[in-house]
């Protein structure tokens, strides 16, 4: 009999093909770190073999489908991730995250002296210079965003 490290879920979302080591950051995006927001089990697999290439992380969230805003943020830190919506043990929907051309209002600029970190009525905005690995450049101060995961809003 095949041995499962983590059993299949009945309903919920499987986030697959997360870049190795990024699973914990994905948990932050889906609100795991705000206590009380998550009511159902969440399982995390880190550093498991990937059929596509090398190693990957996987996150399984039960009884919950992600909203598009969360998916957009996952794209910024795990550009190869796929989202599998599970209904009654079957994959009801499957799609890859998509990195947009511009990222608006999803991350703050890592330059503390950037005008967007003052109380100005603008959302931080970045041009995507490379999708994988993700490289974002602030359209205001022209600096490259360091540590995307740590600057997500």
């Amino acid at each position: 009999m095949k041995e499962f490290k983590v059993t299949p879920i009945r309903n919920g979302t499987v986030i697959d093909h997360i870049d190795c080591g990024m699973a914990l950051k994905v948990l932050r995006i889906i609100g795991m770190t705000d206590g009380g927001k998550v009511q159902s089990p969440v399982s995390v697999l880190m550093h498991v073999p990937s059929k596509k290439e090398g190693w990957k992380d996987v996150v399984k969230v039960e009884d919950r489908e992600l909203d598009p805003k969360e998916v957009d943020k996952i794209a910024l830190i795990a550009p190869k991730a796929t989202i599998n919506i599970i209904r009654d043990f079957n994959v009801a929907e499957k799609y890859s995250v998509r990195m947009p051309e511009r990222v608006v209002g999803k991350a703050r600029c890592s330059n503390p002296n950037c005008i967007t970190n003052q109380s100005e009525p603008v959302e931080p905005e970045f041009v995507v210079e490379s999708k994988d690995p993700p490289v974002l450049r602030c359209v205001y101060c022209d600096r490259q965003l360091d540590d995307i995961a740590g600057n997500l809003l």
Partner: protein
Amino acid sequence: MDIVSIRDLSREQIEQVLERSERMIPYARGEMSSKALDGKILATLFFEPSTRTRMSFESAMMRLGGRITDLGVPSMSSISKGESLADTIRMVEVYSDIIVIRHPREGAARLAARFSSKPVINAGDGAGQHPTQTLLDLFTIKRIKKDFDKLKVVMVGDLKYGRTVHSMAEALSSFGVELTFVAPAALQMPKETVKQVEKAGGKPKLTNRLEETIADADVLYVTRIQKERFPDLAEYQKVAGMYRVDKRLLREAKSDLIVMHPLPRVDEIDPEVDDTQHAKYFEQAFNGVPVRMALLNLVLGGEL
């Protein structure tokens, strides 16, 4: 049209500005007069002190027959009451036809351009961009050396925080100039800029020894080590005064080497250099007027 970064201008547009600047020289000197921008108002917003940039913009506007309205000292205006830059810009744009802004925060000019329907020219945003300085530096080199191709340009001083050197290096490399960056490791050119230079086709040399680069240089571009940009005074004191351009150093130089500096200088160029044939920094400061005239005229569509 806004001019926030030198990258907002194509190479053709840069060449057009340089060409027009040449034509502006007799007007900039006051030998000829013009009413090309008669009836136009330039708003100057200087949130940080400036002498040359501010005065040369004002002089440029007046030489073209235009007028100036000034924000005044930020601590004396609504800024001190906590008004956002966005609101200040919305107000200023209805009082003027074009806005020139200097601000201590990076990205301020881009933000201003987004909130203003009138053209915005960046006169320096923190440690960010200062495109009109780059244009006047390019103009100074072109006027004296005629051609950029294969010129050997040595940049020395604060290459990390100095806002003029980054856009200058990028622009020069796209013109086929050979670049050498001289700075102590802590103030060397940022990796990102080196990468941009390489992308533009340059192969910059990096060193911390000025005397080794002087013999075959055509242009020596000196910058001040800016105390105000250092987070740590101890780090500043370690590097301040490391490079000094004096007659002894220039003995090794070619006779037609030109020494440039965006000014103000502190002690990186000895005053004894001022009356040598190498010194071009005061001419460079004057060139701010014709170059800014050309830009104002271009952006506002004046006829000259």
